[in-house]
C-alpha cells in the first residue's frame, strides 16, 4: 500500500496502522478526521472534498520529508478522501510510528496541522439551506 494516497474510496484505518508498524516501533499515533454532524451550530448534510491530486501528493511528500528531518520516526502514512462524505465518514487518516511516543505524537500533530495549511484539498460544507467552501472568505 502506498504511504500517501488521495482516494475516492473508504479509507481502511486498520490497514494504515498495520502499514506503519515495524518491529522497531514502540509507539504509533494515529489521527482520524471524521465528518461531524454540525459545524458552528448548523446541521451538516454532507461534505464534498476535492483535491488537486498531483500537487497534493507533492505537498504531502514535503510534510513527510520535513517530519523525517525533525523527528526520529519510522513510518508515516497519510490517506485523504475526496468525493461526497456523510456524518461519521473518515476524511483523513495519519499514522506515525516511532521507537518512542514523543516523536510519534509530535510528528502526527505536525502532519495534520501542516496538511490543513498547505495541501491543496478543498471542502464544501452542504447545509439544509445552503453551502459554503470552508475558509474561502474572510
Amino acid at each position, binding site marked *: 500500500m502506498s504511504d500517501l494516497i488521495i482516494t475516492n474510496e473508504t479509507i481502511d484505518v486498520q490497514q494504515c496502522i498495520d502499514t506503519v508498524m515495524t518491529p522497531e516501533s514502540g509507539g504509533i499515533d494515529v489521527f482520524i*478526521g471524521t465528518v461531524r454532524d454540525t459545524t458552528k451550530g448548523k446541521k451538516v448534510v454532507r461534505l464534498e*472534498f*476535492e*483535491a*488537486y491530486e*498531483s*500537487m*497534493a501528493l*507533492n505537498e504531502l511528500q514535503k510534510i513527510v520529508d520535513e517530519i523525517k528531518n525533525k523527528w526520529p520516526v519510522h513510518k508515516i502514512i497519510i490517506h*485523504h478522501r475526496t468525493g461526497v462524505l456523510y456524518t461519521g465518514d473518515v*476524511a*483523513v487518516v495519519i499514522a506515525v510510528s516511532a521507537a518512542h511516543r514523543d516523536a510519534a505524537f509530535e510528528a502526527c500533530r505536525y502532519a*495534520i496541522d501542516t*496538511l*490543513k*495549511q*498547505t*495541501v*491543496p*484539498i*478543498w*471542502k*464544501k460544507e452542504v447545509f439544509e439551506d445552503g453551502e459554503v*467552501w*470552508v*475558509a*474561502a*472568505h*474572510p
Partner: protein
Amino acid sequence: MKINILAFGIAREIVGSSCTTELTGLLVQDLKRDLGAQYPRLKQLSSFMIAVNGVYAQPEQVINAGDEVAIIPPVSGG
C-alpha cells in the same frame, strides 16, 4: 501568450474548471492581477495562490508556455 489555467474549489466555481487567459505579462503577479480583473470574485477570497507545475509559485516567478498553472483558493483539507 495564451495559457490554460486549472481551478479548484471555489475558484473552479468562479472561473470554471479550466479557463484560458491571455497573459499580458510574464510573471505570476501579472497573472494574478489579470485574473483579479477578469474575475472580481477571486479578489473577495481570503487569498488565492498560483501554483506552477504543482508547486506554490512566488509573485516574481516567470510563467513559461506549457507550464501547468493552477488557481489555489484557501485550502481546507483534513
